[in-house]
């Protein structure tokens, strides 16, 4: 990404030596960021590196303990979101800032944003004719994100901050947004783009500041295909691509056993139309799909979280109907959800969290055999290398450790089929590798695993076979060997895959 030197000149935003402590916990040690006028600048970092704290300080939600923020050369103290706006910063946060129970019109009146300005930006973004009298909660998430963006732009900021904004957007919409931002910056305005997604960062950023352990580890010009540079800065070691490390521990292998879990013509809600699949013992079956193609409904049906509207689920050859997750668990089918907040008891200890399924039936409501429970829990904790130092409440653990606790729960209670829905979302690379390695081990010791991951490049690291879901049905099935990112991406968009791969193609 290059822009003529004329438009990128003086720094418009300078952050120097920003630091923030929460008691004994150091969230930021010394962060430095420099953004020039007309520049699109990315900020990346692993979980716990300080990204979210940096954003909170920039947006006035939290006050720093040290350091300065200068906008156009002037040092500003940003003490509230209003002051951030006055300093010329507008932010689109990770979660929508639209009030669910208010109509769009009320939402804009609340923030004194003139509706015509918002409409203008909506038109630029390709979103026409949204009725402002509809409540925000009745709109799809992607629409809300676009509205957030339109509202931020309507404030006519000098600096636009996007915090993980593209995570909820479908690929085509992301493209539209990027194109529009490219035009927007020609007027000399700057973009600060915070994201986990290397692909997006490489696509639009002129420079990237990488944070590690609360400080700036380096500033890089991202180049497509040379992302390991950035990863290296994030991890602090000489980079080995995530890929090589994992696949060297335990290569994928073909399992030719009988199917433990089978879906036939499964249909649910609006998004899931007709999916059939087989998960076999000793095998990891991957599901590759873009956002919202029905994979959430698929997993929910298989785990007993919701009823399918049509089709059948078979466990070990027998048709089963799950009224609730307990039925599925009794058949050995367990779910690890994407959202850790859904799976964890925040205020309780690791022990109670891991042992939860052990008391899930009235027959288990009696006195607990503490010694036996302790042993089982400890075993699981050790196997996953969960860091339990000084943590009596799960809410104080890092994201990666928390995810491990949700997995430990099923390790300790036992299962036959493991359903993982995006288990590594938002997790740092080190823990990701661990989790993938564990999944392979579990398969090798006889479990059946169905895993959905939104990171198509990581499918090959952990799966034996892959099915691709598009528009609610299976459009491709292949062995992991040929499931490289390009092939998956094409298939996932409903396009025929390149010749040479085994697939049941479908044309949109």
């Amino acid at each position, binding site marked *: 990404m290059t822009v003529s030197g004329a438009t990128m000149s003086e720094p418009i935003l300078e952050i120097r030596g920003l630091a923030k402590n929460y*008691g004994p916990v150091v969230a930021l040690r010394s962060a430095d960021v420099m953004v020039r006028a007309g520049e699109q600048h990315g900020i990346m970092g692993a979980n716990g590196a300080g990204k979210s704290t940096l954003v909170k300080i920039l947006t006035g939600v*939290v*006050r720093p303990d040290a350091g300065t923020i200068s906008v156009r050369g002037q040092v500003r103290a940003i*003490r*509230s979101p209003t002051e951030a706006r006055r300093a010329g910063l507008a932010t689109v946060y990770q979660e929508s800032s639209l009030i669910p129970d208010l109509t769009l019109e009320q939402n804009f009146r609340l923030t004194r944003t003139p509706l015509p300005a918002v409409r203008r930006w909506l038109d630029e973004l390709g979103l026409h004719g949204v009725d402002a009298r509809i409540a925000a909660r009745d709109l799809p998430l992607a629409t809300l994100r676009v509205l957030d963006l339109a509202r931020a732009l309507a404030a006519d900021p000098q600096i636009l901050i996007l915090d993980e904004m593209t995570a909820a957007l479908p690929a085509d919409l992301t493209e539209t947004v990027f194109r529009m931002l490219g035009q927007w910056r020609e007027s000399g305005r700057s973009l600060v783009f915070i994201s986990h997604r290397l692909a997006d960062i490489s696509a639009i950023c002129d420079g990237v500041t990488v944070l590690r352990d609360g400080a700036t580890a380096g500033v890089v010009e991202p180049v497509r295909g040379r992302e390991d540079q950035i990863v290296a800065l994030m991890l602090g070691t000489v980079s080995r691509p995530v890929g090589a490390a994992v696949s060297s521990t335990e290569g994928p292998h073909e399992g030719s056993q009988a199917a433990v879990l089978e879906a036939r013509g499964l249909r649910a809600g609006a998004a899931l139309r007709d999916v059939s699949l087989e998960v076999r013992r000793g095998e990891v079956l991957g599901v590759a799909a873009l956002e919202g193609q029905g994979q959430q409904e698929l997993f929910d049906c298989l*785990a007993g*979280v919701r009823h399918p509207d049509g089709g059948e689920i078979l466990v070990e050859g027998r048709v089963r109907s799950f009224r*609730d*997750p*307990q039925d*599925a*668990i*009794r058949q050995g089918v367990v*779910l690890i*959800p994407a959202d850790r*907040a*859904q*799976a*964890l*008891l*925040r*205020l*309780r200890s690791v022990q*109670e969290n891991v*042992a*939860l*399924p*052990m*008391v*899930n*039936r*009235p027959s*288990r*409501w*009696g*006195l*607990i055999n*503490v010694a036996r429970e302790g042993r089982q829990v400890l075993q699981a904790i050790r196997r996953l290398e969960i860091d339990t130092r000084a943590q009596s409440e799960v809410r104080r653990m890092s994201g990666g450790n928390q995810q491990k606790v949700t997995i430990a*729960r099923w390790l300790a209670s036992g299962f036959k089929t493991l359903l993982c829905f995006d288990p590594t979302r938002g997790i740092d690379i080190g823990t990701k590798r661990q989790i993938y390695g564990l999944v392979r081990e579990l398969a090798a010791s006889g479990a059946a695993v169905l895993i959905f991951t939104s990171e198509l490049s990581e499918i090959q690291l952990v799966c034996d076979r892959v099915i691709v879901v598009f528009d609610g049905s299976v459009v491709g099935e292949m062995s992991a060997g040929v499931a490289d990112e390009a092939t998956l991406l094409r298939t996932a968009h409903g396009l025929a895959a390149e010749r040479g791969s085994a697939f049941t193609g479908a044309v949109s």
Partner: protein
Amino acid sequence: MSESLGGGATWRGLATLVAPNGRRRFLQDRPLVALAALLLLLTAVVDILSPGAVTPEWVSATLMFAAPLGIIAAGQTLVILTGGIDLSVGVVATTAGYVMATLSPNGAAEAILVGLGLGVLIGLMNGFGVAVFQVQPLIMTLGMGLVVTGVLNVYAQQTVAAGAVPVVPDVIRQLGAGRLVGIVPNSLVLWTLLGVVIIVGLKRSGYGRLLYATGNNRIACRLAGVRVWQVLLVTYAVAGLLSALGGILLSGTTNVADRGLAEPYLLPSVAAVVIGGTSVFGGAGGYSGTMLGALILTIVAGLLVVVHAPAAIGQIVYGGIILVVAAAYSRVVNEQT
């Protein structure tokens, strides 16, 4: 948020003065110690304001009167742990005591069973609404409370018309007002036994774990295979049973069984739970704190009597104490957030 309010730092500064680091951590981890200290402090205040009032009889009487509140508050504790609340505890207690008293001439044992059974029944209905229809506990128990009050009034009118007079049976009077070895109230023995069962149950039983789990995160429970409605149904039924037990005991302690018996026990039952350190949002806390809370509230009520405080001052002091203790909790114990 404390940053923007600025008060946090000052409070922390003050707390350091009052209890330098080591002791503060001690207090944080063991709120019961602070409660017990408050209890002793209040007892001292009683003795100061009315010298010579604190005698073994006084202690015995206080414990005796605290027991019914403590038992009613036990049901409230369980319900609040699941993230709910039970606004019908006073009504259930009154109903159980009154119905038992009207039936007792025909056999005390059956009357007691009917009273307890009514508690369970009402609790089950509460639980049904909350667990199956997912009605908010506040409003479900509120509505049931109104219904039961009405039914009780109708029942009372009919029994009075029929000439039946409520009589508290001897066995209940013994239980409520009698003493072992001259000084230990029977009601305290019952309360202590119950307390042990509940405290052990909360810590060491699967059901106890599920109470905390349900109050923490219902979705997580469901995904782990828990049928949350079962937990809730049982909890409200148990709360009904405990409220009924408290009401029956109260009728024995006061030797009164009329329609105003336990109505005033609703707010104090919630207050005892709050003072005891259980979070109103559920998922954390326990019964031992509630027991101390019930004792504290009973002493305060007695204190106001001893000082001949006019009703107005009494109300204000009562409310003030609840507020101060709750505020102290939310600062000291939750400081780490």
